């Protein structure tokens, strides 16, 4: 095992003692930093589930075959509070995903950045379903 510098050990001790809950789980434990992926695909469905939502997309490969990927996002509760609903990302929507593939080699990745093909950010840009402009003025 590599030896950690004393400052890092001291930091790790503080972290173990004092780390508050920031998110549900560590994405670097699930996804492989050595396997970056950039996917363009068609949404087939979205699981609005806790602890993390999943977006299912079909990705067509150059040889014409289609891979079915699952993209992990955040907790959906905040999305509801921001005015998004199950109609905010409809099947058929094209999206571009930047993320990292799962360590276990399955067709799963985190959605580090989700965009529409025109570059706008998913949900808060337009999804083509009218979603962003549905964001209510509360």
């Amino acid at each position, binding site marked *: 095992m590599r030896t950690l510098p004393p400052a890092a050990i001291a930091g790790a001790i503080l972290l173990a003692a004092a780390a508050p809950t*920031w998110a549900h789980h560590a994405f670097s434990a699930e996804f492989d930093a050595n396997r970056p992926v950039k996917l363009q695909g068609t949404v087939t469905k979205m699981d609005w589930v806790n602890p993390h939502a999943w977006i299912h997309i079909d990705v067509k490969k150059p040889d014409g075959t289609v891979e079915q990927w699952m993209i992990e996002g955040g907790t959906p509760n905040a999305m509801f509070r*921001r005015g998004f609903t199950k109609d905010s990302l409809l099947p058929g929507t094209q999206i571009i995903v930047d993320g*990292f593939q799962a360590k276990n080699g399955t067709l799963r990745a985190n959605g580090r950045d989700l965009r529409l093909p025109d570059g706008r950010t998913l949900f808060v840009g337009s999804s083509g379903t009218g979603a962003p402009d549905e964001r209510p003025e509360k």
Partner: protein
Amino acid sequence: MASRSLATAASIAALTSVIAAQHVPVAKATPPSNPPALTTPPRAGAGDVSSKRPPAAKAQRSWTPGRTPDGQPDLQGIWSNNTITPLQRPAQWAGKQFLNDEEMAALKKAAAAAVTDDSDAVFGDSLVLAAISNEKGRSFEPSTGNYNNFWLVEREVDNRTSLIVDPADGRIPPLTPEATARAAALAAARRRSPADGAEDRPLGERCLTFGTPRVGAGYNSYYQIVQSPGYVAIVHELGHEVRVIPVEPRSHVGPRLQQWLGDSRGHWEGDTLVIETTNFSPKSSFQGSNANLHLVERFKRVGEKTLNYEFTVSDPTVWTRPWTVMIPLKGTDEKIYEYACHEGNTGMEGILSGHRAEEQAAAAQPARP
């Protein structure tokens, strides 16, 4: 894998070290019991919050809570904690308990600049730490990132510089030597066995419990209080955990009965609900404390939409002195959503199977000469 984990741990550790190094004791000062808190309009972001200061302090002094049908002060409703205020006072604010209007305006501007919807999610105290350094918010996952920040609720800015109100420096007191040694052993165990089984993963990641008390803001940090004669129930959205607390003279359960959320007893001191909790499970964890944790919480409604939540934690096996946090919870008309955690926790499957795949890949590597 091990080297990457270590590198990540070292990165986080280094950041933590920097934060820890910023600890600067300051002269003692007594915080006001009800510091003025700025309310923000719904949907307002950290950067576009109205800078107009409501006469909160004056309103809080004159405000009297209503009564439930059986005559208790009425604390019922749904309350949120989306504050940007960090748990511990950063070095940049050493010696300063409150921000003035000018500093507030600058903080809001910096917070708005620190994060955008398309940047990586910035959790917890990272947002304010980035804002006061005039930097972009940093991901807690520098290697893989998380997901876009639009998955998070917008944060609220108030004029306090730490949630900790005692000690006066706004910092967690030093750990005892035995707690330091325990934490080091725990960190070493996590490095040795990061994911041999689900038992190696944090309690929240396992969907077992997110514990109490809770200081995390901006991540399903919503609570519902329901009162009935003799009881108060507190629903926690994150983990959909419910504390059902007797508010009547009743002794604690025996010491051998230890629970994730401890054993709570409540009573009223004027209009303040006081809850004392002991009997925490040795498997639980609040900032490194568990079975010996003694928790005293105080809930005081100081306005129609403000519930001051103050708690004091003591554990002489962990901290060199007790410490106290105050979080001004905000009343909201939003709903509480169920956080069905375990049944959708495919991330755990991914973590464990991912580590097995890495072990197999490492075993397949030719041995070094």
